[in-house]
């Protein structure tokens, strides 16, 4: 995410205020007038919509992978995040993530951002209304906790889930976003040119992947796993969801340049190349291993490629993006084989894909950074090299893994004890759709 600066005096320059007040404040507070750039604004509005499209995409992706009796309950996990985090982000999320550091830099806070009341007339230096930036960021906050749901699919109470994602968003996501993306966050300022996390490799994918693993280990396996076959109810939905995710990811990554220029095009190209390479790699691996390329494998490879390029899209060359896509699919495939040996039930492989590909991307991107970035880094710190930056990347990964794991174990125990998280055995047998929502997913077979 690029540096942006808010212009506090701008409200005073708005049409409708008295000229005298405007002059007085303009002289004291902020002499420059920031003009809105309609080109950047329209691309960021588009990106905001594209990232939101990823949430129903995720609902379809996960929804197709579970058994028929849980299809609605699983899709509700993604959709309810839009409702819950969508409100929380406006109330306090944006303030915690992008307000000035408080509590020793743990998170941000500005009463101006509470309920977004202080940004009603604010324009950012990038040339977009601050509302656009706040809403764009809000979509990332929505999808991140929704990703975790795949790890405990088919076996949690809806009420417990709602409480969990609300608390997780406040305690894990908002501080992490602050550290990595806010201009006074400590990871943003680490090393010569900061830890590189262009669009959320650490904040979104590593944090959700690690938290997913913690949840899967604490909540335990589904009944009958791994002995009983738990076949996807509809891979057609899953493929449709993967398609939505790929399309939406252009907003996720190319939008994260907060511009509409060369940087945007670089991010878009890297995203496309890595996603395609990830999908191709997974097809090849399965063709070698099983003599058949599966549709779920292709979808998983695309996702691994998209995840790996998320932290890297702003800095790597297209050739590097293809290598990263291949490496991500290999790493994720191996991680899932290891999961099968260990026998824990990360049901939809959130850690295997998001955690592993996210960590792979955050570290391996260091070897494929374009020369222009190194020139800038060396300008601010002479002799800054690959190993220096790798150290910064490793530190940001380590901090994210440790913080997400520790906070998640506390939250998941808290929710289980206070609200109830895991479904009872009888409820799990009956299925989430019937027990939790009083509905069923597919009515087409009914005669009326």
């Amino acid at each position: 995410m690029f540096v942006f600066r808010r212009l506090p005096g701008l409200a005073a320059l708005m049409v409708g205020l008295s000229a005298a007040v405007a002059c007085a404040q303009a002289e004291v507070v902020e002499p420059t007038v920031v003009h809105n750039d309609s080109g950047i604004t329209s691309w960021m509005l588009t990106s905001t919509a594209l990232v939101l499209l990823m949430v129903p995409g995720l609902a379809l992706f996960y929804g197709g992978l579970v058994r028929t009796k849980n299809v609605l309950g699983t899709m509700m996990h993604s959709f309810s995040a839009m409702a819950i985090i969508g409100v929380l982000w406006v109330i306090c999320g944006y303030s915690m993530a992008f307000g000035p550091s408080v509590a020793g830099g743990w998170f941000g806070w500005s009463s101006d951002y509470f309920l977004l009341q202080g940004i009603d007339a604010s324009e950012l230096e990038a040339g977009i209304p601050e509302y656009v930036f706040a809403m764009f960021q809000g979509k990332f906050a929505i999808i991140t906790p929704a990703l975790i749901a795949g790890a405990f699919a088919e076996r949690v109470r809806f009420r417990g889930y709602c409480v969990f994602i609300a608390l997780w968003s406040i305690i894990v996501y908002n501080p992490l976003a602050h550290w990595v993306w806010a201009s006074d966050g400590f990871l943003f300022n680490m090393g010569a040119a900061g830890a590189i996390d262009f669009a959320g490799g650490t904040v979104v994918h590593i944090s959700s992947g690690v938290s997913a693993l913690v949840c899967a280990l604490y909540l335990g396996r589904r009944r009958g796993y791994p002995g009983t076959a738990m076949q996807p109810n509809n891979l057609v939905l899953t493929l449709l969801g993967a398609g939505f995710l790929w399309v939406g990811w252009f907003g996720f990554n190319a939008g994260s340049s907060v511009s509409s220029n060369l940087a945007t095009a670089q991010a878009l190209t890297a995203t496309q190349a890595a996603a395609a390479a990830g999908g191709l790699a997974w097809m090849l691996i399965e063709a070698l291993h099983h003599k058949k390329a599966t549709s779920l494998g292709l979808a998983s490879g695309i996702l691994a490629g998209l995840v790996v390029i998320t932290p890297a899209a702003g800095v790597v060359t297209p050739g590097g993006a293809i290598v990263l896509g291949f490496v991500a699919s290999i790493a994720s495939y191996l991680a899932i084989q290891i999961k099968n040996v260990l026998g824990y039930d990360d049901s939809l492989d959130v850690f295997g894909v998001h955690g592993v590909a996210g960590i792979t991307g955050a570290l391996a991107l260091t070897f494929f950074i374009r020369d222009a970035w190194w020139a800038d880094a060396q300008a601010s710190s002479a002799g800054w090299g690959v190993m220096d930056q790798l150290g910064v990347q490793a530190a940001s990964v380590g901090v994210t893994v440790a913080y997400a794991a520790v906070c998640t174990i506390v939250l998941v125990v808290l929710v289980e004890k206070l609200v109830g998280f895991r479904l009872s055995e009888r409820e799990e047998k009956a299925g989430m759709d019937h027990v939790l929502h009083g509905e069923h997913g597919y009515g087409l077979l009914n005669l009326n």
Partner: protein
Amino acid sequence: MKLITAVIQPDKLDEVREALLAADITRITVSRCTGHGRAQGGVATEELYRGQSVAPNLLPKVRLDIACNDAFVEITVQAILKAARHNGGEIGDGKIFITPLEDCIRIRTGERGSDAI
């Protein structure tokens, strides 16, 4: 030989299946079906549609067909009875039909009668 046909609530499918497996009844056919008995309009049948409780007139059910030798009829029936009831028995839990079975043929070998079951 008898053909046991059970019509049960879909949410009890796993419990019934596991109860049958526990009783060593492993050869079953399961299909989706719809229908209703006295359940229509009863509390047990309510579904929610945008916040409104509705009583659908044809309800999704699950049908199990189990062919067995006479000695296994009671074992099968008891397993289903135990597993298919909601809270010890509610309207809509379903029915079991038992009909005489004239013959049974295993396609692979052409065996007939009790041996083929």
